[in-house]
């Protein structure tokens, strides 16, 4: 690990000033960053420790019906907050399907949003990677790429975004609150992560010094509590990143889907909102035929980036499964194996 300066500012303004220097990086719990630093993938010259910044560890119910989650709220605390899990069950299930109990105890909301891809070539400092080293090339294109992207990839980068948490969040129109040199601004979460295009090294819409201070779920996100699931296929039952995943949230009235939200994980460099599929679902009766049609619409633009054509079929099946389970109703308690298609839950 390269040596670095360590600073622990007392205010958000001081943090932004300290992090605006070239080579600086924010440190929250560090569960991803320290791993990357140990491998020589990230080499910050300064770490700006934000873990003591005041006021960023709160979950606030705002008067307009929206929910504001401070960037330093720990993943486990959010998932186990009873009111949160009841109102946004797919988000809680996604959180609990990710990483391990130890990592969820440490990892923060803001850190989860900022985690880097798990592409093995990105992680191996000896491999060519355009994300790490613009113009170096992409060893994943001709390498072990069965887990790589099938949507929104480019010849420059076929990596996927690893977050589970972000998948139901984009489905629910989450908003990111950012403090930066120019003051406070906000961004739909869907616009935070970028597709690679010609500039895979530009992973997010953030500018130098920008600090995510909170995440907001708009009032409308509450309407899906009764029919919301997150389903995730992994290469082992627990403690693994998604091969593919899907968050499905439905508002069903009088036997019809009034509003549908669908997003996929593990398929692209960003959490993938499937609006075409949502349009297929809106107004329809929740049945197997319309779920299959929605799944086809969600993956209509997909193409293999390597040895991963199977992910296109798998993703469609996971979409159907997530929609079927969501339509059957949110279980009273999160399944023993959160997100797992192997969990025994009524309606599965």
């Amino acid at each position, binding site marked *: 690990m390269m040596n670095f300066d360590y600073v622990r500012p007392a205010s958000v303004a001081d943090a932004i000033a300290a992090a605006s220097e070239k080579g600086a990086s924010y440190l929250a719990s560090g569960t991803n960053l320290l791993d990357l630093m140990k491998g020589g993938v990230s080499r910050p010259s300064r770490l700006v420790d934000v873990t003591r910044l005041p006021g960023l560890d709160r979950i606030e119910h705002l008067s307009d019906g929206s929910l504001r989650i401070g960037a330093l709220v720990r993943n486990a605390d959010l998932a186990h907050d009873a009111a949160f899990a009841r109102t946004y069950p797919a988000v809680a299930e996604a959180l609990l399907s990710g990483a391990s109990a130890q990592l969820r105890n440490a990892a923060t909301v803001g850190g989860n949003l900022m985690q880097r891809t798990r592409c093995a070539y990105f992680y191996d400092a000896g491999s060519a990677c355009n994300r790490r080293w613009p113009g170096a090339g992409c060893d994943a294109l001709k390498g072990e790429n069965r887990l790589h992207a099938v949507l929104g990839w480019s010849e420059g980068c076929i990596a996927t975004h690893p977050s589970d948490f972000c998948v139901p969040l984009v489905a629910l129109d989450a908003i990111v609150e950012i403090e930066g040199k120019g003051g406070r601004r906000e961004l739909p979460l869907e616009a935070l992560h970028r597709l690679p295009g010609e500039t895979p090294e530009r992973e997010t819409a953030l500018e130098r010094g920008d600090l995510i201070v909170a995440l907001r779920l708009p009032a409308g996100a509450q309407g899906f509590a009764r029919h919301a699931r997150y389903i995730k296929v992994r290469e082992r039952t*627990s403690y693994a990143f998604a091969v593919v995943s899907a968050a499905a949230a439905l508002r069903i009235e009088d036997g019809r889907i009034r509003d549908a939200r669908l997003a996929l994980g593990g398929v692209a460099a960003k959490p993938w909102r499937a609006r075409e599929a949502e349009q297929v679902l809106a107004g329809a009766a929740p049945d197997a035929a319309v779920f299959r049609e929605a799944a086809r619409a969600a993956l209509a633009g997909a193409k293999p980036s390597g040895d991963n054509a199977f992910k296109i079929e798998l993703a469609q099946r996971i979409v159907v499964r997530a929609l079927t389970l969501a339509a059957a109703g949110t279980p009273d308690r999160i399944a023993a194996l959160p997100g797992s298609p192997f969990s025994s839950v009524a309606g599965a």
Partner: protein
Amino acid sequence: MNLPLSLTINGVRRDIVLDDPRVTLLDLLRERLDLTGTKKGCDRGQCGACTILVDGRRINSCLALAVSHDGAEITTIEGVGRGGELHPVQAAFIAHDGFQCGFCTPGQIMSGIGLIQEGQAGDDPERVRECMSGNLCRCGAYQGITEAVLEAQSNMTASKQRRSA
């Protein structure tokens, strides 16, 4: 760069001056404070051998910078027994053969203690397995580990009820 920090480790306050910000909690415990019960397995947050409690919560000490935890209260495997008496989770691991080579065991036990305090798994073996999935055991003692955590939890609940009765 001298970085002073103060930690309470197994109930004892330790004032430390680090000369390097890169030191993890794991390396601080093992290399500088001679608390080698906490094990270094992968050093990358994938195996759970380094699990300790920080402010009562189980975390991977290999992915935690010591300097960032100034003021924290830390419990390691050395701090869970009471005098000559084993912690109920330690006793249950022996009773159920929850280990073979023993390398992952301190992390498993600290994780089991953390799991019981979190109170999310209840008496469901599947939930216990899921909540212990951050601790790998290359010997494959998982059956015994799950039984040990379940029994320890039930013993601890019973003795708590006895105390409050």
